[in-house]
């Protein structure tokens, strides 16, 4: 090979790749609204993103798969946990994870910041990213089904969407706070106590790390029946 052809390889290679990359970048921005729903980026979403940066969440959690691999991916966390649970967890990590093998630091997130963060995570969860991460797709499906009428949804989807972010059952769900069948067997709650427990765990079992659940009476009954049925 001559020096001349080596030089040609350098310039042709570099410039052709740069041109393709720039053209694709222009197209990425043109089509961004359909993938990232840019029209839904409200002021609150932006404030929530600043909260996300402020507490350096991204060095433990991944989002879109990027960041620290120490804690769960947050891309679809909104579907996995829902608003109330996210707020409770980020404000009280030391209670929620008191028995966990990994801890989350108490960051001092305020109630307002937590709400903004939820807005950000809700917007993030709706990014059309080819259904990634794979393990969270079941929550997306279940949560979307739950948003419809509770009675029409398969019972397991309802429980998965409501409880699966922390509990497991029949080999589904995340099993951070125990398997529902084990928990059902190890406590003696009657139906009414179980419903009260779900809506305000600390009132029934002081010291419980479980966040209060924002459930309609109807959905709480369905879940209580399901759990008691596991006994």
């Amino acid at each position, binding site marked *: *090979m001559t*020096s001349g052809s*080596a030089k040609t*390889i*350098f310039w*042709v*290679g*570099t410039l*052709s*790749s*740069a041109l*393709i*990359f720039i053209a*694709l970048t222009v197209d*990425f*921005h043109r089509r*961004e609204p359909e*993938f*990232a729903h*840019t029209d839904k*980026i409200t002021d609150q979403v*932006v404030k929530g993103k600043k909260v996300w*940066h*402020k*507490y*350096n*969440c*991204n*060095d*433990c959690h*991944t989002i*879109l*798969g*990027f960041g*620290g*691999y120490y804690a769960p*991916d947050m891309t679809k966390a909104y579907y996995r946990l829902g608003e109330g649970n996210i707020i409770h967890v980020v404000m009280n990590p*030391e209670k929620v994870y*008191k028995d*966990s*093998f*990994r*801890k989350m*630091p*108490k960051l001092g997130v305020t109630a307002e910041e937590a709400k903004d963060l939820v807005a950000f995570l809700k917007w993030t969860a709706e*990014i059309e*990213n*080819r259904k*990634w*991460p*794979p*393990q969270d797709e*079941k929550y997306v499906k279940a949560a979307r089904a739950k948003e419809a009428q509770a009675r029409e949804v398969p019972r397991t989807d309802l429980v998965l969407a409501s409880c699966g972010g922390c509990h*497991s059952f029949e*080999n*589904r*769900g*995340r*099993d*951070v706070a125990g398997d529902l069948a084990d928990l059902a067997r190890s406590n003696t709650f009657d139906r009414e106590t179980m419903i009260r427990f779900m809506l305000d765990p600390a009132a029934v079992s002081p010291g419980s790390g479980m966040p209060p659940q924002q459930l309609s009476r109807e959905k709480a009954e369905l879940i209580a029946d399901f759990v008691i049925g596991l006994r």
Partner: protein
Amino acid sequence: MIKYESQKVALHYIRLSLLLFPLQVVMGLWLAVNYGFTLPQALVDVFSFATARALHTNLLVAWLLLGFMGGTYFILPEECERELFSVKLAWLQLLLFAGAAVAAVVGFLFGWTQGKPLLEIPVPLDLVIVVAALIFIANVVLTIAKSAHRSLIQYMLAAGVTFLALLYLIGIPFFKNLNTDYYYWWWVIHLWVEGAWELITASLVAFVILKATGVERKVVEKWLYVETGLFLFTGLVGTGHHYYWIGAPDYWLWWGGVFSALEPLPIALMVADTWLHVRERKDKTVNPLLWTYIVGMAIYHFFGAGVWGFFHTLPPINYYTHGSQITVSHGHMAFFGAYALVNLTIYYYALPQFKGIKRYDERLGQWGFWNMCLSMFFLCLIFLIAGVLQTYLERFLDIGYMTAHSTMMFWFKIALGIGAWFLAGVVMTVWHLFTLRPAQEKA
């Protein structure tokens, strides 16, 4: 035996970087402790995994960049056959860079962060680094401009340094849209390691090979053109392998997949040309350790960045492996092979010259090299096992997070032990580089 007085400034860059390297590894061990054991809440509250990770990764970037800067200041006078444009500017640059780094470390400990992985340094400190980078570019370009000679290595270095600084700017602003944010985050991270850094290190290594082997300059420059050309050809569009799951058009699967599948090609060429040059060297072997490093670096670069990267970036595989401990395995092997070993190669070329040593006692250096290379190989193997288990359990079988992640505690206890072994290798190497002394001539 340095030829130009101004080369001495490089020594301070190199020494500082050698102090940061072991610190980076100590932080890495602490991260493994976080994975391997359950830590008390009170400790996690004041020194979280996130803070430790920010320190681990920023120390890496800091010591690598210091090495690139020091290496550049070392070779530039020889390559330009004149003193540096300004030694004072080089000192000012070092003080600004080191000052920003210290302020960043202290800041991280108190939660002062931009909150973007790898780019945690807050904006005011970013600006200090930008000033340091501008001084660096000016000093490099003016030294070259005032030289009576022109060479490809000069141009590549100047281009690499400028490209590096320009890309850094893209990481500074706040983006409202997470998807855009990560689109451009990779312009810093990926285009650094697959673009700007390759230009700089390829030039530095070309210089070392040129001087140490006595191979003709024309031949070395020809390889340099072809390799950097292929690095940029595959690397620029190859950025797309980070865009599979961020919410971007489907064509990225193809562009990203095909171009990154080609990424091992220039590295394979690099292994081949390094091997040829070392084999055909005209000068007598003075310090075999330098050859060990040059060849070792090329091979490790090929496996860590090339082969590991190749499998990991194929879209159907990446769907399962993206953002898992498999990424950690690839990241460690690639950074160690492609960059840590390059810096150490340059140090082993430069440091003996500062002391005027022709042949040094290299026993401890050999121990350091082999201990680092072997332990890093096993460390990446452990990360790979942990990652395969994680993705298989959580993403393939779809069973709970807890089950998938609690298996890591066992593997990271092993990783901690191997990490300590790696640290031992690093301490040997750093100690050896600081205390180089002439070899005892056999009677």
